[in-house]
């Protein structure tokens, strides 16, 4: 079916937007509104994969389904059986599983993954779609580090670690993208299924592994600039253990990709 669309040129495409959530009761409603606002003439569905949030996220999603239609918003609660050390940590651990779970319900030929906390703004969705249609890329990834993109809400220390991490990763891995840890991406569905099956990392290293494995497999990857407003930064710290995790992830990727 995808080939048929491509030969027709302006074929019909459907975009499945997977949003993993944990305690994003308000943000999920805001995101859904903004997605509908910015994707007016696009065929899409939103797949909310909720990690058993205790804050009523599921209720809000039901209300949104009622408002926008159950064929546009799918949701699923998946029971996450793991030792929950810290809530933030548990959230990170569930990401790959959340995507795989969401993929099972996706009926589009393209899949978008994005965060639920409004650091990824739905207003960039049209630019992802446009870039993919122009270049027929397998993956379009959002980058915060080029002109036209940017970050708000980071202090100097945070920028330093981000930049240092990026230079190190570029030197070691030659990844072919400017923003390795970004998680605002558009994939062809078949490509996502292929790449995700070979990834085993957790958290943001998982995001890195996805894009590096995709590069190694020779997939055509394009980038679009995005802006990233970090509203959570004040509460979460980038401590020593995070840096160690990152370095371990880098070495793992260096050796196994």
């Amino acid at each position, binding site marked *: 079916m995808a080939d048929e669309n491509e030969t027709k040129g302006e074929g019909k495409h459907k975009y499945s937007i997977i949003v993993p959530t944990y305690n994003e*009761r*308000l943000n999920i*409603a*805001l995101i859904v*509104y*903004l997605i509908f606002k910015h994707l007016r003439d696009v065929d899409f569905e939103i797949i909310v994969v909720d990690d058993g949030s205790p804050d*009523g996220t599921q*209720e*809000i999603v039901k*209300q*949104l389904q009622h*408002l926008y239609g159950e064929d546009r918003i799918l949701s699923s609660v998946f029971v996450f059986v793991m030792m929950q050390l810290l809530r933030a940590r548990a959230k990170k651990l569930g990401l790959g599983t959340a995507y795989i779970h969401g993929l099972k319900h996706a009926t589009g030929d393209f899949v978008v993954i994005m965060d639920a906390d*409004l650091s990824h*703004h739905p*207003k960039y969705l049209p630019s992802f779609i446009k870039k993919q249609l122009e270049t027929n890329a397998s993956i379009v990834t959002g980058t*915060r*580090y*080029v*002109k*036209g*993109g*940017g*970050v*708000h*809400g980071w202090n*100097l220390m945070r*920028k*330093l670690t981000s*930049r*240092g991490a*990026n*230079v*190190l990763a570029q*030197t*070691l*891995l*030659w990844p072919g993208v400017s923003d390795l840890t970004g998680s605002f991406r558009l994939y062809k569905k078949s490509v996502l299924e292929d790449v995700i099956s070979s990834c085993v990392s957790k958290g943001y290293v998982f995001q890195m592994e996805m894009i590096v494995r995709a590069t*190694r497999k020779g997939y055509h990857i394009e980038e679009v600039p995005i*802006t990233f*407003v970090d509203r959570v930064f004040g509460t979460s710290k980038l401590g020593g253990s995070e840096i160690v995790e990152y370095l371990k992830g880098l070495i793992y990727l*260096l*050796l*196994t*990709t």
Partner: protein
Amino acid sequence: MKHVVKILSLLVAVSAFWIVLLQAAIVPQSHTLLLPIYFVVSLGCYGLLMVGIGIMQFPTCPQEADLLNHDIAEAKDFLSTNGIDIGTY
């Protein structure tokens, strides 16, 4: 070919070249022996330079926070008039 194999073969090629230089002694051996150190140091300097440049040119977008707040207000407005229970946030 795995990426690490690519890097290792590059290192092997460079090392072979270095050893050839040592043997051929076109350049005085004392200089040639120091080449790896020069290489590592310049690599480190290059890395630091890239980090420094990156920080100076780090793209920021302060206006985005305002735009986002505006979008949030608009969204809250729409949602509450359409019966979505946003609660007290």
